[in-house]
């Protein structure tokens, strides 16, 4: 079966093509096409995994292009790492496909939605199977494009359109670094193949400065894709997309691609201690900052989004402190429990008629039993409670930070773990316990500071006259009105089945790397790789991590369930900090001021320069010939003679430059 691994991405591609051409006739039935394709992919992935466990890495490549002496290949490869990733991606994608059947069924573009999902699954699986970095990059861009399409799926909401654009363009910044890094590597090694690159690094064919430079450039790509500080700003906004999309792309798969990238290029990173330090600190800082912001958000999806950023920071931190297995193990467990949490949130949002503010929820425990229980499992897992999946992986990350990092990294990781437990249970208690607060009132929080936080990228448009027409045409809200305005109730099997599946995985996924079974996952992933020994924590570390999680949960319980501490206790105590967090450290505003405005301004500058050079020229001519002197004030552009003059003077500048620099006068 392992030879047929190429089938895995092909099934979703076929689904995409079918839906592209005949989707509009299928309408709701489109979902079955997608579900069937992913089910097949999942089955093949499982078979491939079993075969890989007992066997060898399988590689199949064909020649693609020849550049001079080097040949670039395309094909697929099944390694231990991507065999695991295949399972994660196909499984999460499958449950999301099933979940969306119900969640999106009122949308009359459901077939389009499923075709995008198919395209995304294809791209993500292609990314995972890629045997070289160039192919990875191609699919990397493609998943970015799918993310753009899916975030902007409800494009008639201006926020969604802006968020889609922001997500795409922000990650492009990282991609610039990635591409540059790849090309430098190619230039040094003459190949994009992982194996050749590993060998070149090991044999010292690349000098240290270049290793560090390329590692950092490639890491920049990961920072963009995995929403690490300082490029994380797009992910919370991307929550404007439909919730199943958030679960699939912005929690479990695409955002993990950055972590995966660092994983596959790991030998390169290991060869540069500078790069490793940068990776570790970026991860730690991201984990910490994102967790602080998650503390105060009131939108259920945004809390989860910041939580995702924070957890991705954890993974990056683990990789940066030589915890290769820890980082990738957490990637897997996180994919399951975060997808679970997002789908749980989706189930809640669906039940309360597309409200997302947790201040409008509450008391859902009795009304939505399955959702509540599974959500609780997810929350316990992410908080790191024994014996759920998150406990095992988080404990390894802490061990890695402690043993290979420094005290600072470890402290940050611990504090973040505490905050994680706290904000997750704040979310849980506010949503599922207490009284239902989502009565008939429509939008009680219209003046929420959250609402003006959208899209820094939009500022470019505000300056730009050509976009004005668009924003005026405000659109009707999406067709997601369900017509049942009675109190929330549990959703149908299409939505609860995925929750149950993911919840059971969130319970058991940790078992694959149990210490007392000799860390089977570790053996599997590190086999044949020269990565050094993996850090493992002592028993006291496990107890400490449990204690931290427990105290976080206890504090949340005291504040939001018991009411022993007033909910706005901290907000009152330190309003400045609270506001800072609520405004996300004003990063959007800062970026707008520092990056977006200048870009627009540079564009304007060049344009103005073109114009003003022309103006200047006209004045010059005006002075030199009396006949034109009178008229230059009023009419000064569109003049062909000034174009000629600009060209000639420009040419003279170029000539002068060349002659001065090169000294042709001699």
């Amino acid at each position, binding site marked *: 079966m392992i030879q047929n691994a190429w089938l895995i991405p092909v099934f979703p591609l076929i689904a995409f093509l079918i839906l592209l051409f005949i989707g509009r006739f299928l309408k709701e039935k489109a979902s079955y096409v997608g579900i069937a394709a992913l089910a097949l992919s999942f089955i093949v992935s499982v078979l491939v995994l079993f075969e890989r466990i007992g066997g060898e890495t399988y590689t199949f490549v064909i020649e693609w292009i020849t550049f001079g002496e080097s040949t670039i290949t395309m094909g697929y490869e099944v390694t231990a790492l991507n065999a695991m990733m295949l399972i994660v991606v196909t499984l999460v994608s499958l449950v999301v496909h099933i979940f969306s059947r119900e969640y999106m069924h009122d949308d009359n573009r459901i077939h389009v939605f499923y075709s995008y999902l198919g395209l995304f699954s294809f791209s993500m699986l292609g990314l995972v199977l890629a045997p070289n970095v160039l192919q990875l990059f191609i699919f990397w861009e493609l998943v970015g494009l799918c993310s753009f399409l899916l975030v902007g799926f409800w494009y008639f909401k201006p926020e969604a359109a802006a968020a889609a*654009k922001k997500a795409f363009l922000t990650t492009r910044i990282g991609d610039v670094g990635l591409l540059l890094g790849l*090309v430098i590597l190619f230039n040094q090694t003459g190949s994009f193949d992982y194996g050749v690159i590993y060998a070149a690094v090991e044999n010292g064919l690349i000098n240290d400065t270049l290793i560090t430079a390329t590692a950092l450039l490639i890491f920049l790509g990961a920072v963009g894709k995995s929403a690490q500080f300082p490029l994380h700003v797009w992910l919370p906004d991307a929550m404007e997309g439909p919730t199943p999309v958030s679960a699939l792309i912005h929690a479990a798969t695409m955002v993990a691609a950055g972590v995966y990238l660092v994983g596959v290029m790991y030998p390169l990173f290991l060869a540069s201690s500078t790069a490793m330090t940068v990776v570790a600190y970026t991860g730690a800082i991201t984990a910490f900052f994102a967790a602080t912001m998650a503390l105060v958000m009131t939108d259920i999806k945004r809390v989860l989004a910041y939580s995702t950023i924070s957890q991705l920071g954890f993974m990056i931190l683990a990789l940066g402190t030589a915890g290769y297995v820890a980082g990738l193990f957490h990637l897997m467990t996180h994919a399951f429990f975060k997808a679970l949490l997002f789908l749980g949130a989706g189930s809640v949002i669906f039940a309360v008629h597309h409200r997302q503010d947790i201040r409008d929820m509450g008391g859902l425990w009795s009304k939505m039993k399955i959702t509540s229980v599974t959500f609780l499992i997810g929350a316990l897992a992410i908080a790191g409670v024994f014996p759920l999946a998150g406990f095992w992986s988080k404990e390894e990350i802490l061990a890695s930070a402690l043993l290979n990092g420094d005290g600072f990294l470890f402290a940050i990781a611990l504090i973040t773990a505490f905050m994680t437990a706290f904000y997750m249970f704040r979310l849980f208690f506010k949503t599922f316990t207490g009284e239902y607060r989502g009565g008939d009132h429509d939008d009680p929080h219209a003046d929420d500071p959250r609402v003006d936080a959208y899209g820094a990228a939009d500022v470019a448009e505000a300056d730009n006259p*050509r976009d004005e027409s668009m924003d005026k045409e405000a659109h009707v809200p999406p067709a997601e009105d369900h017509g049942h305005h009675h109190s929330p109730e549990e959703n149908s099997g299409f939505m609860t089945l995925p929750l149950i599946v993911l919840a059971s995985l969130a319970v058991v996924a940790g078992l694959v790397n149990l210490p007392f079974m000799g860390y089977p996952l570790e053996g599997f992933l590190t086999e044949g790789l020269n990565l050094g020994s993996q850090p493992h924590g002592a028993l006291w570390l496990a107890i400490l991590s449990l204690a931290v999680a427990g105290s976080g949960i206890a504090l949340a319980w005291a504040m939001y369930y018991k009411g022993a501490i007033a909910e706005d206790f901290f907000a009152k105590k330190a309003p400045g900090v609270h506001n800072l967090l609520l405004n996300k450290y004003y990063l959007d505003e800062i970026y707008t001021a520092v990056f977006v405005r200048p870009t627009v301004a540079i*564009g*304007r500058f060049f344009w103005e320069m073109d114009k003003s050079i022309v103006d200047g020229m006209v004045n010059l001519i005006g002075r030199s010939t009396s006949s034109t002197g009178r008229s230059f004030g009023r009419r000064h552009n*569109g003049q062909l003679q000034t*174009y000629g003059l600009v*060209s000639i003077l420009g*040419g003279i500048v170029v000539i002068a430059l060349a002659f001065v620099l090169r000294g042709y006068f*001699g």
Partner: protein
Amino acid sequence: MTAFDANWSLMTPEIVLAALALLVFTIDFMTGIHGKKPFIGRLSVLSLLVTAVLVVVTNSTSGSIAEVFVVDPFAMVFKLIILIGVAMVILISMNFLDRERNAEVYQGEYYSIMLFAALGAMIMVSSADLITLFIGLEILSISSYVLAGFKKYSRPSTEAAIKYVVLGGTASAFILYGMSFLYGLTGSTSLLEIGQAIPMLFEEYTFVVMMSFLFMLAGFGFKISIVPFHMWAPDVYEGAPTPVTAFLSVVSKLAGFGIILRVFFLGFGGVYQEWAFIIAVIAAITMIAGNFIALTQTNVKRLMAYSGIAQAGYLLVPVATVVGDVGINMIVFYSVAYLMMTLGAFAVITLVTEDTGTSDLSSFAGLYQRAPYLAIAMTVFLVSLAGLPLTAGFIGKAYIFFGAVAGEMLWLAIIMIVTSVISFFYYFGFIKQMFMTDPRPNDKELAVPGSMQTVVTVSLAVTVILGILPGLVLDIFNTFNWMAFF
């Protein structure tokens, strides 16, 4: 060897095209000058295709006529690019001329002048002699001046034409002035002989050689619209009839690159190190200015003009970084990609702007609802122009980018990739209009006529196929010894 016992059959495609162009002209006389003449359009397309076949056939005997007119892989590929480009422009024109508001155009003349322009471009890329080269260039240029002003009762069109003719004439004078010194120093107009003499002459007459190089660079730079010789392009592109804009931005520009390569690699190849840096600087400013100014544009045709300027900057990068056949590989591959994606985009632009009667960006509003196929195709073209994977534009840009890194011009590579990211912003303007805006109230579903459908489909297919399987043409290019005619 005298010119008269040379192998004149090498010129077959040009002679046939000239004859067919005259035939078209004659048929036009016989059928009366006014009225719609779609059959002449079809005949012109047929002529171009026949010529294209002849180009491929005659290439089996590569050689030259007295080292003045040469047939080599370079000439063949560029001729095919030109012929296919013009054929597609004519297909776009057939729809354009069909409309009431363009009834003033004399259709027969339009098509035959288009054919003569193609002929000029063909002669140009096949020449290895300054005189032949100049004649080819002027046949192309003079035809272009006429085409730009073809809507003779339209004020923008005639204004575009006069601007083009005055500035174009000046550019020709610059080229000639540069050429006259080359002739004076070497006593020959043959690029081969000039190429042999240049390294020694450079030692002795550095100043004059560089002067002549820079004069020619200024003139050719005008034809391919690179900064700072680009100022005419937005105005002329905006005023000219849209299919002519497509012609100028694709055929005229690529043919210009053809002779730049001929003259600079053959003639000045010996002193490559001396001028590569100048080209690199110009490429850098061209990419920066083109992409940044495009950000501020709201008129589709002006925007495409600046986008075309930026694309010319990308095409200049390999001229500055990679010597020899590999560099030509890159330029030719990107030229093919550029031809397809730009002509595809212009087909959609022509259809949309002619339908709505305005070339403002808002004319694209809700195109996805009006004509889904066009909107998707246009998205692919734009994405390719911006350089996203799975499109020909990505492969072309990546290839050029590799070359720049390998040529140790990292700064140029970085400028290239950063400016191409900036280009996303303005290409997104289109995509946003097409997909994320509702059509204007009185815009109905857009019917796509057959000729347009052909152009869009062919461009789309090539853009995507070359994006996935670039080896199809790159493997062929790799076997070419581009300028081997001697």
